[in-house]
């Protein structure tokens, strides 16, 4: 029997800035009445370098999974040059456990459009693509409507707010591939090519979309930009954990009473998120495991959650990562073998098939795991499973290979006994299935 982890007394106080509770905020008039597009005006009055400097000082780190410092990324873009430059806003959002960008499309689309425009101004970009997963049909239409309104209010397009600055925003609909969320694959997809990741280097800031300098940012990352400009980098840097500050959209799923997306400062303890923000575990059951940041991040044991916070450093120290802050909670009765088999199936299904270790390895992992699930694996398969995952990790073109390996590796490290219990005593040379 698992000990129920201790409950924090109360939830951290936070007033939403990314998803404020304003009614009809998706309507441009409502958005503007509340000061919307004010940050854009402010930014257009600044020099582009000053905007980048401000974002650097805010310590904003990317919300797309890798926590890369956004200001630094922007500063990689060449200042001058004859080539066009592009911004891709990544709304492919296909990672299991991650569903937070959708809230922005639905409840605050103009914040995203405003952030996109500020980013374009900062980097001297005249065309931005917002790439949205095809399954988000409803949200694509919502963003399209918001964009039309922004165009008709002359906030996008020619001579924005009479500043002389011109930029276009295009919405690009994905066709249902997780891999198209990987930044280089996303660019190929926009170009009309097959969603195959590119070998790096060269990096997108040198050779990106149509061979031109390109920045790729997550939807939520971009949505933070107007907040930084409006309230100032100092304010922003003071929110939450200093090294990974700002408001964070945490998507909670699994065994909690109130699953959903919660906006909170970074650094909130995971147990607080589970018990205070998400209403605790149904039936007051113990927590067997959590996956803190979307299915690609390493699993943590329930007993090990004490003191672990939702930010890059704390989760790294705990042996995982913040990823996209998609917290998956599994109670004490969860069949983790079924969980990891399902996750492995996802990566098998989504591997683009370009490079050998991921193409072949993801299928092998899944096939092995189905044998564990069916109770037909041998003891030697436990080591084999680990070996296959290790052989994928670090040897592939893009991070999907790692993303497929990490959950399996961490599950094996944290819950090896569960795998061993699912094996049958069978000589090594006996056939796989009876």
């Amino acid at each position, binding site marked *: 029997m698992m000990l129920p982890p201790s409950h924090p007394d109360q939830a951290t106080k936070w007033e939403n800035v990314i998803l404020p509770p304003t009614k009809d905020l998706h309507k441009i008039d409502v958005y503007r009445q509340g000061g919307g597009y004010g940050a854009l005006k402010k930014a257009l009055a600044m020099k582009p370098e000053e905007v980048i400097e401000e974002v650097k000082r805010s310590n904003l780190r990317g919300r797309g999974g890798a926590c890369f410092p956004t200001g630094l990324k922007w500063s990689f873009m060449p200042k001058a040059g004859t080539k066009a430059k592009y911004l891709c806003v990544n709304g492919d959002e296909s990672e299991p456990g991650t569903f937070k960008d959708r809230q922005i499309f639905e409840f605050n689309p103009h914040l995203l459009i405003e952030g996109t425009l500020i980013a374009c101004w900062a980097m001297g970009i005249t065309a931005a693509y917002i790439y949205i997963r095809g399954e988000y049909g409803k949200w694509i239409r919502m963003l399209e409507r918001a964009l039309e309104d922004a165009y008709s209010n002359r906030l996008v397009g020619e001579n924005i707010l009479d500043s002389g600055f011109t930029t276009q925003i295009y919405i690009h609909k994905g066709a249902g591939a997780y891999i198209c969320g990987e930044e280089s694959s996303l660019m190929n997809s926009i170009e009309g090519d097959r969603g195959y990741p590119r*070998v790096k280097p060269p990096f997108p800031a040198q050779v990106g979309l149509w061979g031109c300098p390109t920045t790729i940012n997550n939807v939520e990352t971009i949505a933070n930009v107007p907040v930084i400009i409006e309230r100032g980098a100092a304010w922003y840097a003071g929110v939450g954990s200093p090294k990974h500050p700002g408001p964070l959209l945490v998507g909670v799923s699994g065994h909690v009473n109130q699953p959903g997306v919660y906006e909170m400062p970074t650094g909130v303890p995971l147990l607080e998120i589970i018990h205070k923000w998400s209403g605790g575990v149904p039936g007051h059951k113990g927590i067997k495991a959590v996956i803190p940041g979307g299915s690609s991040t390493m699993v943590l044991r329930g007993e090990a959650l004490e003191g672990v916070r939702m930010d890059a450093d704390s989760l790294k120290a705990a042996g995982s990562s913040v990823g996209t802050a998609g917290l998956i909670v599994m109670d004490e009765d969860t069949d983790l073998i079924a969980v990891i088999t399902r996750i492995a199936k996802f990566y098998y299904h989504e591997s*683009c*098939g370009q490079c*050998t270790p991921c193409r*072949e390895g993801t299928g092998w992992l899944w096939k092995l795991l189905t044998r564990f699930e069916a109770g037909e694996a041998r003891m030697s398969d436990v080591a084999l499973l680990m070996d296959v995952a290790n*052989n994928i990790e*670090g*040897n592939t*073109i893009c991070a999907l290979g790692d993303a497929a390996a990490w959950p399996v590796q961490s599950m094996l490290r944290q819950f090896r006994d569960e795998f061993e219990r699912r094996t049958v005593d069978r000589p090594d040379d006996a056939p796989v299935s009876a």
Partner: protein
Amino acid sequence: MPKVTIDGRTFDAPAGRTIIDIAAQNGIEIPHFCWHPKLTPAGNCRMCLVEVEKMPKLAIACMTTVADGMVVQTASEKVLNARHAVMEFLLINHPLDCPICDEAGECKLQDYAYKYSIGESRFEEDKVHKPKRVELGPNVLLDVERCIMCSRCVRFSDEIAHQPVLTFTQRGTHVVLTTFPDTQLDNRYSMNVIELCPVGALTSRDFRFKARVWEMSSTDSVCTGCARGCNTNVWVRNNEILRLTPRHNEEVNSYWMCDDGRLKTFKHVNAAERLSAPLVRKEGQLMETGWDEAIAKAVSELRLFRKNEIAALGSGFSSNEDNYLLQKFFRETVGTRLVDLVEHVVEGDQDDLLIRADKTPNTTGAREVGVRPGPAGEDLASILQGVRDGSIKALYVLEDDIAADPAVREVLGNLELLIVHAHQRNATTEFADIVFAASTFAERNGTFVNFQRHVQRFRPAVATQEQDRALDGFNMSRWDKFAAHNDRWGRGSRRDARPSWRILAALAVVYGVKYRYQTAEDVFREITERVPTFKGMSYLAVGSRGRTLAAAGTTAPAPVA
């Protein structure tokens, strides 16, 4: 010059070059499937992972550019483990059908499985199944299960053949190579993807299932399809040519050849209708005779005419040696000035890659060794005019079916004597009085000169009655070597055909001149002595890569030791 250290040895590393490039240039093999020196790198197979000091992960040698001071390990434990892993991954879904796969014996995957894998698989699950026997185009067949998705064929079609019709569909292990809707792989270079394919996924519809690789001998040769003279290998089993494949020569054809050259230039060698003895017309019929009789007959017939009633046509399909002896014999011994040849130019049928409008491999060489219009403009047109008006009564033709051209056929009936060298009966032999059974490019030694003035050698790959595979030093297959007397493949049928130069030399001897050539090389030696642009060359110097002729009027290149 920046330096890079690979496996403890330090090399010059010009900026922008890749690790695999520098390693290859210095004789260090880094195994790879998707990389090819002539295609843009793809980095997908992961076989070339190497350890680079200060890099956190293994790096792909094919796309990692060298930097000054870089230290690379290509055989460290980490590298070997990754290589074993990649090999194991590649093999888990690969069909184990080597025993029936055309590629076996020349398969990169099979070779590497011996060289770079642990030799066993831990995979016990079901393999993925995919389409087999997919027709990609008229000449190429695809087995998707064997494909390792290296994309070499896709890149070749896009970048070299400029026919971007191949692509992948589906994802993961289900990826399928296919053609775009309503397209097929039917460009003139389509079959190059067969050798590019590191496995047996792409096979030749012409060669499929004809032979195991090790049953055939492979001989360096030159394609006779056009004036490019692509370097080739001639593959023979049971004394029969089964396929031609391109042989790398950067100066001539790179790694490629065209489908026509590959498919249309060797079938006649094997043809059942090949001549296997000289023919002499008796009572209106061409009848097989012995060589001595045919040669004596040819000489006595020729002697019936005055010098200026005799003309001779060389051939762009014959070797330099043949053409040289033809013009020598007719100019010096017979004494006519009427020597030329028929050109075979198909206007407009050429491209930027390989294909040339001149559809012979040697017109340049024939001209160079003296088959060209005489001092008073005695050329093909005047020869044909002479035949038409009856002033020319005897014509001697090397290997060329000149009557295929109706304008030529029209006048041949006027001749009193027509002697031809031919491989089989054709439109010209219909008119001939004497036909000498000539051996083909695949049955003799010789040289051609391509349109770039590059002298190139070809060697016998198919035995005739006058030469033996073992005694005459042909390349041999394992079957050839180990055949017992009663093994069929050790014999095969051998035709009684002779090289044109040897037939001409025999004529000269009967004519009373001493032509002391034992081998084609003897004739070539005389060419190098008498034709200035060939000066300094030898068969050895021409080698398997060829040598360029000196420009007319300049000093010839010095011979290579």
